[in-house]
């Protein structure tokens, strides 16, 4: 009962604040605005139902890349993937699918060489194409899906 009254009171003041804000023609957030959960932050992975959805990672994401060659770019991208997967509760071995977008197909073999070092026990399902452009001057972009371990 008490909590309901409290809630009603809060709800009343919340509405009052909204109306006041509107009248003052000033942008005002509701008093009880929910804070974003870790799953919704821009940098972290989207985790749902035991799956980790990895945003497309470029060499320009997660700090500056050292070097402009495909090896450095692939390493940076794979480090980003590793960090994201692990922060979402997965492992490199629990990655299910990766999509590799290259800026040029000429980088295919060199990309593979660095890529292989991240999967000593064999890699996940993967597709690779060269595209017309990758944002941020990255030579490669990779996105994918991983499984949460012991979910």
């Amino acid at each position, binding site marked *: 009962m008490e909590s309901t009254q409290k809630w009603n009171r809060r709800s009343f003041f919340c509405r009052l604040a909204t109306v006041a804000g509107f009248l003052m023609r000033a942008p005002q957030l509701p008093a009880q605005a929910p804070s974003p959960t870790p799953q919704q932050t821009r940098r972290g992975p989207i985790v749902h139902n035991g799956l980790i959805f990895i945003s497309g990672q470029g060499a320009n994401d997660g700090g500056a890349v050292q070097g402009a060659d495909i090896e450095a770019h692939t390493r940076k991208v794979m480090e980003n993937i590793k960090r994201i997967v692990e922060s979402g509760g997965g492992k490199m071995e629990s990655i299910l*699918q990766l999509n590799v977008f290259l800026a040029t*197909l000429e980088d295919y073999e060199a990309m593979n060489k660095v890529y292989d070092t991240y999967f000593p026990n064999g*890699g996940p*399902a993967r597709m690779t194409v*060269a595209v017309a452009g990758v944002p941020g001057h990255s030579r490669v972009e990779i996105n994918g899906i991983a*499984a949460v371990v012991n979910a």
Partner: protein
Amino acid sequence: MNCRLPTVGVFESNSDLHFPVTGIAGTLPNSAAMRAQNQGVVRKLDYDGQSVKGNPRIAPVVVHNGFIYVSGQGANDNGPAESLDITTHVRKVMDNVKKLVEAAGGDMDNVLQLTVYLSTLEFYEEMNKAYRPYFPNRGPARATVSVAGIPGGSLVEISCIARVVKP
């Protein structure tokens, strides 16, 4: 008895596809625990539905929690394509996709999402003609783009996600 086995990195050596949807295998007897563990197990399979051998760079198909992840298939995968036209390439690629989906315990009616990468947009209509017979009932959600390059000289690459239907 502690039956907490690692749920990832456990690749079964047979093609038994059983995905029970009940329970966490904390205190179950061994066989039941193993079956229940399948729910979280990542299984990497080849074109025959057998566990991949020799730590390959790309697992042709990965099964996890009732979903089937099919690697991008080119006309150069699983044997060479017989000729170089787009119709032959699409057929080869879709035969590969079908083989992998079925090897993993799915079927073509249960492909959920599929992506087509063409080497040139000029192949769009011909690709569609060769693609359609693989989905006589209803096709999956699909995206198609043309790209700057496809590895292995294939004119088309297709990847997809399907669901397991065989118990």
